[in-house]
């Protein structure tokens, strides 16, 4: 299946919030490489800027102020972006062939030409990532599929001065994070394994991530039950009609002798 990434060659970005200094070089590099326009922003009383992902902001640093037992003020910085799920809700629900596709490095990329602007991917995403641009087309992080296909790093990871964003083979990144003492890697197994993985020191929810991210139940039910039923239903109705015609035959208004 083209939907799921090839395990052997899967690339990922490892996010280590502990070493992030919140410089937002990643945001700038992303804008620069992807030629994304600036946008009007709003001061929400935090350094987080822009306030959320946008059609022209594929990644942001989320600033969370979270007190701990020993420290009343703690500032957590974490990169927020497309998670490049192995089991991607957006790909599952998307009705347009080729609009959202899997690259051979495992990234979830998109083709605006093929996007029909239905916005179902927004509803299907467990992480509220896809945004729509002014032409009503999908817009999100694509793991710099154009750079990584040429052996380069994504712009954000290339720019990151501290190693808070590291790009590479997914297996190796997980291994190195574990060696560095992170027991659990967020995204190692969730949704079939994420392509953006996180070495969290604290509970994921402190960083604004769900403990157990999931594709909406209704989308799974639709995929597993309603889609097959739409085929079985049509096939059954047509077959039923043909069998009825062959076995019982057309309706008769009165008794007639068979010729």
């Amino acid at each position, binding site marked *: 299946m083209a939907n799921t990434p090839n395990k052997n060659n899967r690339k990922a970005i490892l996010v280590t919030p502990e070493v992030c200094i919140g410089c937002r070089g990643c945001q700038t590099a992303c804008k620069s490489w992807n030629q994304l326009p600036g946008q009007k922003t709003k001061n929400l009383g935090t350094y987080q800027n822009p306030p959320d992902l946008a059609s022209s902001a594929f990644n942001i640093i989320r600033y969370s102020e979270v007190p701990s037992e020993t420290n009343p003020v703690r500032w957590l910085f974490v990169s927020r972006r497309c998670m490049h799920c192995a089991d991607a809700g957006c790909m599952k629900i998307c009705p347009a062939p080729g609009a959202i596709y899997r690259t051979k490095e495992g990234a979830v990329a998109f083709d605006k030409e093929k996007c029909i602007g239905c916005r179902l991917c927004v509803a299907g995403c467990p992480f509220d990532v896809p945004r729509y641009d002014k032409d009503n087309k999908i817009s999100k992080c694509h793991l710099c599929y154009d750079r990584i296909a040429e052996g380069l790093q994504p712009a954000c990871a290339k720019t990151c001065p501290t190693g808070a964003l590291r790009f590479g083979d997914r297996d190796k990144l997980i291994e190195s994070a574990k060696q560095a003492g992170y027991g659990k890697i967020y995204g190692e197994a969730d949704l079939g394994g994420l392509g953006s993985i996180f070495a969290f020191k604290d509970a994921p929810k402190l960083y604004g991530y769900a403990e157990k991210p999931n594709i909406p139940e209704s989308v799974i039910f*639709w995929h597993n039950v309603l889609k097959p039923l739409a085929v079985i239903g049509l096939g059954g109705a047509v077959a039923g009609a043909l069998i009825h015609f062959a076995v019982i035959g057309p309706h008769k208004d009165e008794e007639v002798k068979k010729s």
Partner: protein
Amino acid sequence: MSEMVRKATIAEIVNHWILAVSCILLIITGYGFLFQLKPVYALFGSNYTMKVVHNWTGLVFTLSLFGTMFNYLHEALDLSSDDWNWIKMGGGYLTKGHVDVPPMGKINTGQKLYYLAILIGGLGIIASGFAIWLVQGMRTLTLLSHLIHNLCFVLFVVAVPAHIYLGTLANPGLLQIMISGMVPLEVAKKRYPKWMKEIGKL
């Protein structure tokens, strides 16, 4: 020439064909969406064009479905013990030869139930379709609409082929009602005795 009676008005026939053609177009494009069928998309030139065709055909379907309410709703809601007995014997469709079914009006029990199912399923698929099309930024509503739209779709792909079969192969001569609207009086007396009584022909 035997005497004919008018079973369907011209307006009813035209509206039914608009409903039928739009419905089938919606089902074809619906399968295109459901399984990302490239050959179906190719019929329309581009992905985006097919979406536009689906959405606006949906509007045509909506209008003609509302139109049917003037033609069939009153009759379909007029259910009696005859209808229950008709259901119990499968409308005579389960036996090879001729069987006497309870007397029917202008439309029979099966058609009444079919109409009510299409009306309810149609309202569901219309409301959810417009919600997906026009409402943005309400995730729960979009997901619910997506579910309802697909549930109703399953109803349509089962019921519509059955309806087409029953209106053509299973009942020779019936298609004529959706073309000229006329039925020979003698046939009408056998099929629609209650209606014939109402208009004083029986």
